[in-house]
């Protein structure tokens, strides 16, 4: 008999006897499923969070805040300073003039749907050019706020996680009342976790005079950040620092990347535990059939085919578990809307993202578990002399 | 009843329910076993040998009748009381030795002594004596996996006698052994019977083994058959 025919005979026999070893087989499947599901849950979270923060920052948008303020919330920019920044080198224009957006950033309370408790939401004061700066901005329900009125538009993420922001609702922050007139999307990024209203109105309501907090400016294709930095340095009236918007959000998201690292460490350690469980199961399962394997070898099956048969069993079970785990993770976590504390004490709303690539990572992990937990027991079963295997009863 | 009688079975019945059918192993079994007997019970498969041994060993309960051991009834004892009774009175010897694989010979022999109130030193002495008796003093520290079938059965015998029970019950004690080893084991049983006065009941289907006993009973379909009827022996003895 060829090795292939022998192996497939052994594999067939092993697989047919799986139901007899039901609990053992289930344990192996479960071990593999859990490791894969845990890993995928963390990866999907990291992926979703990354997508939310990364897609918010654009490389060709310069972002100005007061030196040392670290975040929009703490920063301030005077009106005169905005005018000066407008003249910085390398800033693009459109039909409405320079693409420069001075913005305000206030924190207000909203009530979370999940817990019923209050959490912070950013209320951004923005002007026409600010909307033009956001590539993916679009109103998905209702309309844009009318400048000069107490109307606001709400990001899709806020609508998902907080109650009371539905179209047409009146919302109160302290003494101020606002009307929700529209829902906007920015393609899933962090801006969807915000409320937007007219900058001038917020200046009035929050006693900001004519000051702003941050400035965004679209860069021309040949603009250089160094030139802008030099411009700021030579202008004593400016105390701002400049970076790309992409860079700003990357730094803001750093705290949460700890969460991803934590997830990876935990799932790696947990995988070790489950691996021990799987190995144990396979050892028990194989020693259960030590006699069968010895019989096969006694009647002339090669050691290799017995080895392959056992390996195949472990791989099939682990793969089955992996697929199950990936499926469970997909059903439980894909698109799951989550929110957490981002930079500036405000809520960032994002969705878990389970991509095909992640699922493949999970499947590979399952196969790895199958390989490890099959290899050693199979090795042991086939390296014991036949006679010894027969002697050991049960 | 005479004080010579160790065991008395009176009208013992044993039935099993199998589905709707009731299978009767014994309907009306009577027998007497005297102190110091070495009794062999023979019979074909299904004759009820093992069931009889189970009843005598107190691991099974009769459906009817009385079993009297040393003047006291044991049928109807609770499971816990039976366990105590077994520990105090019976030594078991099995076909497949039934030693604990993770314990060495001495520790296996010591097992029944764990059920007594003996100190560990006293237990150690008893174990040494028992192993000497079966000729395995030098194998005390060996694991079962390191010993031959004959040696294993001798360890099992040591285990059976270590707590000095009145009765030894042997279930095919030589069934797994070659002729020569089997004879050694049987001679050892004879020695225990003659020199130490142990009453022995041995179930076997090997006539050569049965010849080592003082009497033989033939069991068939739940009845004793043939001339070796126990009552006859009693009269002739």
């Amino acid at each position, binding site marked *: 008999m060829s090795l292939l025919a022998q192996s497939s005979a052994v594999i067939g026999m092993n697989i047919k006897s799986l139901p007899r070893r039901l609990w053992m087989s289930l344990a192996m499947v479960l071990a593999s499923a859990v490791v894969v599901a845990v890993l995928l849950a963390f990866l999907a979270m990291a992926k979703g969070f990354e997508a939310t923060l990364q897609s918010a920052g654009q490389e060709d948008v310069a972002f100005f805040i007061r030196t*040392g303020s670290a975040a929009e919330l703490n920063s301030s920019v005077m009106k005169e300073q905005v005018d000066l920044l407008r003249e910085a080198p390398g800033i693009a224009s459109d039909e409405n003039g320079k693409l420069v957006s001075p913005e305000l950033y206030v924190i207000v309370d909203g009530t979370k749907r*999940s817990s019923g*408790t209050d959490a912070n939401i950013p209320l951004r004061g923005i002007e026409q050019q600010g909307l033009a700066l956001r590539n993916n901005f679009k109103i998905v329900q209702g309309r844009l706020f009318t400048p000069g009125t107490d109307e606001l538009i709400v990001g899709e993420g806020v609508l998902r996680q907080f109650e009371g922001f539905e179209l047409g609702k009146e919302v109160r922050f302290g003494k101020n009342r606002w009307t929700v007139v529209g829902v906007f999307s920015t393609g899933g990024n962090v801006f969807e976790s915000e409320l937007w209203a007219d900058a001038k109105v917020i200046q009035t309501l929050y006693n900001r005079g004519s000051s702003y907090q941050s400035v965004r400016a679209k860069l021309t294709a040949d603009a250089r950040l160094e030139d802008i930095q030099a411009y700021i340095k030579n202008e004593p009236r400016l105390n701002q620092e400049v970076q790309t918007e992409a860079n700003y959000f990357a730094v803001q998201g750093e705290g949460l990347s700890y969460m991803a690292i934590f997830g990876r460490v935990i799932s790696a*350690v947990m995988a070790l535990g489950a691996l021990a469980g799987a*190995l*144990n*199961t396979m*050892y028990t399962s194989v020693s259960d059939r030590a006699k069968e394997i010895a019989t096969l070898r006694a009647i002339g099956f090669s050691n290799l085919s017995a080895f392959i048969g056992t390996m195949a069993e472990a791989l099939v079970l682990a793969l089955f578990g992996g697929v199950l785990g990936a499926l469970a993770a997909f059903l439980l976590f894909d698109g799951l809307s989550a929110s957490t504390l981002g930079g500036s004490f405000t809520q960032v709303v994002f969705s878990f993202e389970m991509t095909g690539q992640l699922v493949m990572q999970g499947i590979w992990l399952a196969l790895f578990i199958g390989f490890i937990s099959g290899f050693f027991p199979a090795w042991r079963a086939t390296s014991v002399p036949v006679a010894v295997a027969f002697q050991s009863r049960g | 009843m005479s004080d010579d009688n160790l065991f008395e079975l009176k009208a013992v019945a044993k039935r099993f329910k199998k589905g709707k059918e009731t299978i009767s192993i014994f309907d009306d079994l009577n027998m007497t076993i005297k102190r110091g007997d070495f009794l062999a019970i023979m019979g074909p498969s299904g004759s009820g040998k093992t069931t009889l041994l189970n009843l005598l060993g107190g*691991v099974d309960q009769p459906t009817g009748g009385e079993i009297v051991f040393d003047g006291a009834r044991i049928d109807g004892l609770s499971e816990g009381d039976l366990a105590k009774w077994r520990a105090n009175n019976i030594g078991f010897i*099995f076909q497949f030795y039934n030693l604990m694989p993770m314990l060495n010979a001495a520790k296996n022999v010591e097992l029944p002594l764990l059920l007594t109130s003996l100190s560990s030193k006293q237990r150690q002495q008893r174990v040494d004596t028992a192993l000497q008796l079966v000729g395995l003093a030098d194998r005390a520290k060996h694991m079962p996996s390191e010993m031959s079938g004959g040696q294993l059965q001798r360890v099992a015998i040591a285990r059976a006698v270590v707590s000095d029970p009145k009765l030894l019950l042997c279930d095919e004690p030589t069934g797994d052994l070659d002729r020569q080893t089997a004879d050694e084991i049987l001679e050892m049983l004879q020695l225990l019977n003659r020199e130490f006065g142990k009453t022995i009941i041995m179930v076997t289907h090997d006539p050569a083994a049965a010849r080592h006993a003082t009497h033989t009973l033939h069991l068939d379909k739940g009845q004793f058959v043939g001339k070796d009827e126990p009552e006859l022996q009693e009269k002739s003895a």
Partner: protein
Amino acid sequence: MKDLYLVYKNLTRKKLRLFLTSFAIFIAFLIFGAVTALQGALNSGVEMSADNRLVVFNKINFTQSLPYAYVNKVSGIEGVNQVTFANWFGGYYQEPANQVVTMAVDPDSYFEVYSELVVAPEQKANWLQNQAGVMVGERLAKVNNWQIGDRIPVSSNIFSNKNGGQTWDLVVEGIFTASDPQVDTGYMVFHYKYFMETQSWGGDYVGWIVLTTDDPALNEQVANAIDESFANSQAETDTSTEKAFNKAFIEQIGNIGLIIFGVVFMAFFTILVLVGNTMVLAIRERTGEIAVLKTLGFSSPRIFRMILTESCLLAFIGGLLGLGAAYLVVGALSQMMARFLPNLVLGPDIVLQALGYMLLLGLITGIAPAYQALRLNIITAFARG
């Protein structure tokens, strides 16, 4: 117990299996200990809140300020015992990444209201006399290796100094400790008045007001009285107990925390299920041996106890090692992450909880096979073997 030797021999009969099983349990409890400690650290602010302490914030959000005049008004409300206030400074030391939690507070009343903080009287007296003095929490001082008398330049990412720049030179006048190790001492406080006089915007506002009530039973009444007295004013207030506020702040971490802890605990229990399965099977393999023991006269309850002892021992070997490792890991982490995560300790409550789970694991995995052994019919057991 004479049977302990038997239990030990049963436990160690397959060394590899013992190792793998213990290892899986080890991992499970390592993770349990570490993650529960983490969770506890996040919640410790809630645990440590005083019962009769209330906080008053601007109703819009806690990042908005309140007029200074509110402080006096609040202290006049019935049921209010002591009042203090604070302002967020947004401090960092040397570089922006090295954040130092700094607040500008009222020096006379701050330590009265936060009575769990312990200050040496002479240090406090020195601090009261030095405008530019700062009281540093024990843990913060340790992290930065600051001593009394050190002059430390602290920068703000929010405020500018009138003298230009954003840095204040402060002098460490005292180091405060806490009566309970779980209380956070990872921050520092300096004079509110000095802060207001030196920062470029000036102004007459406070970040928030903290007060104690005469009796915790009055909390709700006092909170309502405060919020009512400022209703319809320029700055409405939101008064809550310190506990409720801390809890709400923790909850801002959001369902992400819930999801992570949920996933971890699910995995913890799955590992236990896996291990339990193997343990059950391992004992079931021994049906024949158990039948022999019973035949020899070992009573059923005695065998039941032996099996339970074995499974509990196994659970505790792996579990205690895992918990010990968690203790070391948490100890190391609390050194490394002192800045981000104060109060990371593996406390006795976690140990007790873990011990409970170990016992539960031992009992649950032992009870099924032990019960089977209890019910085991010797005759059928032999027929099978």
